[in-house]
């Protein structure tokens, strides 16, 4: 502890020797030399200039005084800025990272002495700098609109800051997607999906901007609710950006590293913070239904984590095993934060169980007004039971019959299992000419998607019973494997003078 404090102190005392992250310098140099950035910036400025000109010339023909000209111009600039920064910057950064990060032959910068955290942070900072460049170019145009009336300066700067945060978050998501170990065609598909997704982001950004313009941020700033909303938005944005950051760092870390630890620690910390905030909200409002704001995102993240977890290899690399603590007690805690499907399953299961338990306890003491019945709790439990049943079945199939295939096959199997169970009954009914809305809305045990289409609520209990039974059976079948993994979670035995084999002379 003292050493760490000393290190931090020395770092700050030595501030004159500080240097920029090498990745930022490299990326910015490349950005400056690249025609893509320069060209896009020039085009952006031309569009801004022509738009201003069109508004001013249009107004000069109008005999009536327009008290909203500034507001109208500002709205157009927001659309242009949002379009340019949400489309272009994440795409540019994503393509740059993907070009360096090839599946089989990563660039040597990923194996230099730079840590994965510094590399990803450098990429992220570079995206933020480029965004800042675009925002700086746009800011004089936007500030100018204040003189034409219809928008106040706090609104201008607030919307710019709001937009900037969104661009930084999308930039981080693009970097994460570029780091995914996928072939180029798949990455190209992601680019297309991201392109369409951007429309949604831009539309919601424009909608929020209009809302702020109408209300006037200057007037809203005095209210406490406004700041609560701002802090919540910034907090959520930071949490999402942070999540994609740790995921990207894990992806570029060497396969022999303990990639799971930072991700699981981060998610656990955010989950805990989310609970505290949500519980505080429940205390303030007295409505236990607010817990769903914590319960639902946890559920979604855990389902994705489950898929990733079962795609992990069982064997830990030497480098990772060397970091396993010697103490048995510490080993128990460490188990859930290390690579490997067994530890991951325990972590996901534990997180979900505590989430449901905590939500249920809160509901015992507070009235639930936002959601009328306990259905949604059953829905969570049933879906979670199905997810675990699919995952454990996939693991079992992979272990018994496909052990020579890479572990990611288990994740794929789980998805296929869920999909097949959902589609095959309908396909069968189609061929026997009995497919109808009634059959789709009827009971299909084993099909998790059937839960959302059920006509009769009473059938949900049957689903819960079926999913739980399946889960328990498959859990028992997986138990020997699980305990084997637990037993194998040991640091390697080091050869010392005492236990080394005798030297024959």
């Amino acid at each position, binding site marked *: 502890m003292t050493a760490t404090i000393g290190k931090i102190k020395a770092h700050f005392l030595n501030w004159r020797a500080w240097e920029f992250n090498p990745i930022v310098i490299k990326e910015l140099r490349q950005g400056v030399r690249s025609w893509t950035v320069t060209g896009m910036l020039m085009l952006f400025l031309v569009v801004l200039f022509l738009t201003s000109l069109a508004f001013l010339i249009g107004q000069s023909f109008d005999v009536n005084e327009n008290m909203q000209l500034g507001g109208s111009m500002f709205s157009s600039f927001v659309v242009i800025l949002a379009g340019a920064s949400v489309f272009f910057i994440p795409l540019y950064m994503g393509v740059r990272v993907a070009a360096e990060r090839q599946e089989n032959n990563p660039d040597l910068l990923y194996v*230099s002495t730079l840590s994965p955290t510094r590399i990803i942070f450098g990429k992220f900072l570079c995206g933020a700098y480029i965004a800042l460049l675009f925002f700086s170019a746009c800011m004089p145009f936007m500030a100018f609109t204040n003189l034409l009336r219809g928008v106040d300066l706090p609104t201008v700067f607030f919307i710019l800051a709001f937009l900037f945060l969104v661009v930084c978050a999308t930039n981080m998501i693009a970097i994460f997607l570029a780091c995914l170990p996928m072939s180029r065609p798949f990455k190209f598909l992601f680019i297309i999906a991201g392109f369409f997704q951007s429309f949604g982001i831009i539309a919601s950004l424009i909608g929020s901007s209009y809302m702020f313009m109408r209300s006037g941020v200057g007037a809203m700033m005095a209210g406490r609710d406004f700041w609560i909303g701002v802090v919540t938005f910034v907090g959520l944005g930071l949490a999402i950006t942070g999540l994609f950051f740790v995921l990207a760092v894990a992806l570029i870390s060497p396969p022999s590293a303990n990639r799971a630890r930072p991700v699981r620690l981060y998610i656990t910390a955010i989950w805990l913070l989310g609970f505290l905030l949500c519980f505080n909200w429940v205390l303030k409002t007295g409505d236990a239904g607010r817990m769903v704001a914590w319960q639902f995102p946890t559920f979604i993240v855990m389902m994705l984590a489950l898929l990733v977890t079962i795609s992990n290899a069982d064997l830990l690399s030497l480098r990772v095993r060397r970091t396993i603590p010697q103490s048995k007690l510490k080993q128990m805690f460490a188990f859930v934060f290390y690579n490997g499907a067994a530890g991951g399953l325990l972590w996901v299961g534990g997180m979900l169980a505590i989430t449901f338990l905590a939500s249920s306890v809160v509901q015992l003491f507070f009235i639930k007004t936002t959601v009328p019945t306990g259905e949604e709790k059953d829905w969570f439990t049933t879906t979670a039971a199905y997810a675990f049943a699919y995952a454990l079945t996939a693991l079992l199939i992979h272990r018994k019959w496909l052990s020579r295939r*890479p572990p990611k096959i288990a994740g794929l199997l789980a998805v296929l299992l869920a999909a097949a169970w959902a589609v095959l009954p309908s396909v069968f009914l189609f061929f026997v000419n009995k497919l109808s809305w009634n059959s789709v809305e009827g009971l299909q045990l084993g099909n998790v998607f059937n839960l959302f289409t059920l006509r009769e609520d009473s059938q949900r209990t049957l689903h819960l019973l079926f999913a739980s039974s399946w889960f328990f059976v498959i859990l028992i079948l997986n138990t020997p494997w699980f305990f084997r993994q637990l037993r194998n979670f040991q640091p390697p035995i080091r050869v010392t003078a005492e236990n080394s084999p005798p030297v024959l002379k």
Partner: protein
Amino acid sequence: MKVQVKNLHKEFGKTVAVDNISFEFDSGHVFGFVGPNGAGKTTTMRIISTIEEPTSGDVLLNGVSVCEEPELARRVVGYVPDTLPAHADITVHEYLDFFARAYGLRGKKRTQAVEAIEEFTNVIGIREKHLKALSKGMKQRVSLGRALVYDPDVLVLDEPAAGLDPRARVELRELLMLLAERKKAILISSHILTELTEICNGVVIIERGKILETGTIEEVLKKSTPRRTVAVKLLASELHQNTALLKQLLETPHVENARDVANEIHFELTGDESAACDILDSLVAKKFRVTEFRQTKQNLEDIFMNVTKGGVQ
């Protein structure tokens, strides 16, 4: 600096890429790493450079384990991969400067290091050129410069001469010899074995992940060819006597596998130096007008062909 590869073993699924190999080399030496495609050379080199982790075994760089302390090991090893740098929108100088920064060089020290490397690898004239616009030879120099910019003690070069023209190959060879003089421990793999013979002090021959031969070039030559091959050449006007000479040699003791090779008679000598003298004496006594009687020089290529079977995993 001592590089010790100890019982290195690497598996990719069911494929054994490197099968329990051990060898070592030292500062000031160039060590050749030879084997057919798929023999496990690149995997071994990537493990030494901390890019891959072995399934078992270890590599010690002056006692620093690449498994235990990869971050520390990375500071003493420079890796030149078989792929060339292909970054877009970056000049040679910026590229070298970036890697100097990445390896923690600061301020003036970094500027000096980059300039020194640009001079050493002779890229000063192209320092402002874009990487993408460079020829293969120039890219190889930049790649070497990148690996040397933080002054590592060990240099691992994977097929550095592949695809280079003869001039670029000669220049690369000269650079490597200079580096050996500067007390770097160099491990180099190449398919151009005749060149390796000229610059390597030692060699490891690997096939199917296993070491077939290892040692100094002389040791390996001796081991792989216990019998020396002697060439006899007659006066140009007496080449018609070659058949008689061949017949004569076949009847002489300590001579095996005599054959005509491009107007010379080659045979394998099974005896010692005095046996060679006796053979020459007998030829002169039989009035053969011998102009050359010499031991043929075997190179790495001959050894490679002798010891490998061309198998891959």
